[in-house]
């Protein structure tokens, strides 16, 4: 166990370091990063002054070490556009994105898992074809389109739900459904395969032959074992939901980090954009690490293989 844990930890550390390095170079792809940090209309002297103050006139390697040092102290820098620490700007928006991601995850799990189980249990029936169509739709719907369609139907025509912003729980419903649709399809596919695999195992067939009802077999045996792969997918899907928030939050004017990223690009506030990319990526890496650890605790065979 410790050996697997260590190698998995090391892998996560390398990925985190890689992400930090990649972001550093992407920020310098267009040449001088100072130009990405000054508000529009800054004079040449102001730019030169800032370039020097930020150390962007130093050699690349020195800059890189300073950047690593800063991040090691959890310092994300200071926004020159908003004149506030980036961590504070980000911190004010993160709760909104977490609420949105949690809502989307609830939609995705709440519909996706039962749909996947039903598709496996009623294999080849009309129910399966109907649900397969739902899954396929969820997989192919662009979030910005389904978002606008929902705004049109439930906001403009029916006046049931607020069309944008974040006033109370009702305004979370549409963004959560739009964001959760893709993850819902992934969960349904996963659950279907996992349950199908499990239903064909000898022990389930034997239990059914002994007279155990389908419901009891599902509940006592199948779902427990089928749940294992779902854990990993859930962790990875949370990362995808955080990233997908960029588009959904823009559609619904939801004040989370996705909207903040697009606003910061428009305001040329790239330290904030950089911080958002780092935050989402590190969250993603951490979640997949935790999922793998959980997985290995539940299923000892993983450790043996690794």
């Amino acid at each position, binding site marked *: 166990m410790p050996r697997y844990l260590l190698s998995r930890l090391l*892998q996560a550390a*390398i*990925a*985190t370091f*890689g*992400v930090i*390095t*990649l*972001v550093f170079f*992407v*920020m310098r*792809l*267009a040449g001088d990063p100072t130009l*990405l940090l000054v508000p529009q209309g800054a004079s040449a002297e102001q730019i030169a002054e800032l370039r020097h103050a930020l150390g962007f006139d130093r050699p690349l390697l020195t800059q890189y070490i300073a950047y690593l040092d800063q991040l090691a102290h959890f310092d994300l820098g200071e926004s020159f556009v908003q004149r506030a620490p980036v961590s504070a700007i980000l911190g004010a928006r993160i709760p909104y994105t977490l609420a949105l991601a949690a809502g989307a995850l609830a939609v995705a799990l709440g519909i996706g898992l039962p749909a996947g189980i039903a598709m496996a249990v009623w294999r080849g029936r009309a129910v399966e074809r109907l649900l397969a169509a739902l899954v*396929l*739709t969820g*997989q*192919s*719907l*662009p*979030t*910005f*389109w389904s978002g*606008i*369609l929902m*705004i*049109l139907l439930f906001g*403009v025509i029916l006046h049931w739900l607020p069309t944008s912003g974040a006033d109370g729980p009702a305004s979370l419903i549409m963004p959560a459904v739009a964001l959760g649709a893709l993850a819902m399809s992934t969960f349904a596919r996963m659950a279907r*395969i996992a349950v*199908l695999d499990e239903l064909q195992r000898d022990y389930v067939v034997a239990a059914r032959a002994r007279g155990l009802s389908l419901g009891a077999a599902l509940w006592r045996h199948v779902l427990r074992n089928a749940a294992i792969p779902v854990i990993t997918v859930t962790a990875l899907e949370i*990362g*995808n939901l*955080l*990233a*997908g928030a*960029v*588009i959904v939050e*823009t*559609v619904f004017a939801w004040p989370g980090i996705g909207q903040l*990223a*697009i606003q910061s*690009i*428009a305001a040329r506030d*790239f330290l904030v*954009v*950089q911080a*958002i*990319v780092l935050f*989402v*990526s590190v969250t*993603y*890496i951490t979640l997949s690490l935790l999922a793998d650890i959980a997985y290995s605790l539940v299923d000892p065979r993983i450790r043996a293989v690794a």
Partner: protein
Amino acid sequence: MKARLSPGIVLILFLLTLFVVAAVLAPWVSPHDPLRQSLLLRLRPPGTVAAQGDFLLGTDDLGRDLLSRIIYGARASFIVATLSVSVSLLTGTILGLAAGWFRGWSATLIMRLVDTMLSIPAILLAVLTVAVLGPGFTKLILVLGLTRWPRYTRVAYASTLQVAALPYIRAAVMAGAGPARILLRHVLPNIAGPLMVVATSEFGLMILFEAGLSFLGLGIQPPAPSWGSIMSAGRDYVARAWWMTVFPGIGLFLVVLCVNLMGDWLRDRLDPRSVGR
């Protein structure tokens, strides 16, 4: 393997062909100039008949013909998706082949880079990169292509490792063939199937990415038509002009749906074990 086409797949291919033909022949099949504005014809509903001609799907906020813009938007979408998939397929396959053949430290380096790339959600990396570089058609294709290669590398790497251990490859090595010849002549044809499956699903994703980036204002720049940017403008007029978001969205949805279905079909054909999964 005899090709048996079900009615479903024929319909999918027909729809996709329709979109591709319309996109290729855009200058001849679109009824109007997609860029020509007319303040008098702003936000006209579908089926408008005016002195300037018929506007089957209505007009947008600047009085441009929506049908023509959707047709030209399809063109932009297919060009971006085709070129960016080519870039990522090429990059990813070369890296995967190299990692699988040479193994050792080069494989470690490449596969760690793959892990890193896969740790940053692609849409965020694309948003950051496009924002840093500034918008542009070539930049958009390069950014999409160079952020989406790791999946091909994983597939190419795993398949190359498998194939490289087979006797006929060892025979080729002993016959004196160099790495380039072995990889291109003997390994690549044997791993092309799984790569094509990845490429198909990536094609649908690229179409979504292009539309998403254009929706955010980071992709194809106005006035050039793109499904994403048409819908982004339509978002502001959703209460007055539903057609601006509904029609380009139907196009986008149908194309992505067909591509996804085709991907599933291809996968089932190439890997009979996965049928029905």
